[in-house]
């Protein structure tokens, strides 16, 4: 069982790594989106390994189902076709500068993770769906209501921003 978990972790890590690299380096935005979807599915697998099946379900429902569709609409509405903005190869200098920008925070954070490990259990906690729902309605009720307000405001704001009056050209 232990071995299976390790193999699954390695497979999901590979999917996440490959997807992330593809998502940020692909020259076609649609392919980058496919890489993003692969990464999101890999993270959903990680949630399953962490004994949080509800989070895996939400990950697939919200990220793969909703956010990726929104990104796809953004690609479609801006007509980012194959020979669009990202088609030309990136200059090497820009690559190097970007890597340099990543190196700072990456090095500091990985140093912190490796030298100051928190006391961690080897098996994840089991949280039942019932207790999650109770948490959503009892102690964290305000956050739950506020996130719905934020979503409503964001959606009406988006409609207002992209509104085009009929007849006005």
């Amino acid at each position, binding site marked *: 069982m232990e071995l299976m978990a390790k193999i699954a972790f390695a497979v999901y890590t590979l999917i996440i790594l490959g997807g992330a690299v593809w998502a940020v380096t692909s020259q076609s935005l649609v392919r980058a989106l496919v890489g993003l979807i692969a990464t*999101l599915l890999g993270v959903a697998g990680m949630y399953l390994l962490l004994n949080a099946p509800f989070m895996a379900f*939400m990950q697939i429902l919200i990220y793969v189902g909703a956010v990726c569709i929104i*990104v796809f609409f953004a690609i479609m509405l801006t007509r980012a076709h194959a020979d669009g903005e990202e088609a030309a190869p990136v200059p090497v200098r820009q690559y190097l500068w970007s890597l340099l920008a990543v190196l700072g925070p990456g090095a500091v954070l990985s140093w912190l993770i490796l030298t100051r490990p928190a006391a961690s259990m080897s098996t994840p906690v089991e949280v039942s769906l019932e207790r999650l729902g109770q948490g959503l309605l009892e102690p964290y009720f305000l956050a739950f209501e506020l996130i719905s307000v934020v979503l409503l405001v964001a959606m009406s704001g988006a409609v207002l921003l992209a509104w085009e009056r009929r007849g006005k050209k």
Partner: protein
Amino acid sequence: MSPLALYQLVALVLLCAGLFGIVQRRSLVGMLIAVELMLNGAGLSIVAAGQLTKANAILGQLGTLLVMGLAAAEATLVLSIVVVVSRRFGTTRTSEVSTLKE
């Protein structure tokens, strides 16, 4: 290496990939994809910290749910901003949209 550190390293890889993408991409949609990667890394880190330590696991999972909701709201707004920018400028290339410094 503890299991938590492994999950945190994967989350860090996602953060770094997102950071790299947001610096290197030349169109707004590509940057949006990179931001989603970073937010996902944050979610994975929070859930791992909640599930594998003595911290409140319910808070960890619900916090990540909140991050997902914020990511959805952010993607909606970015979509409409991208639509407005592409209507006004005819492109979403960042080098042509940044007219403030001229």
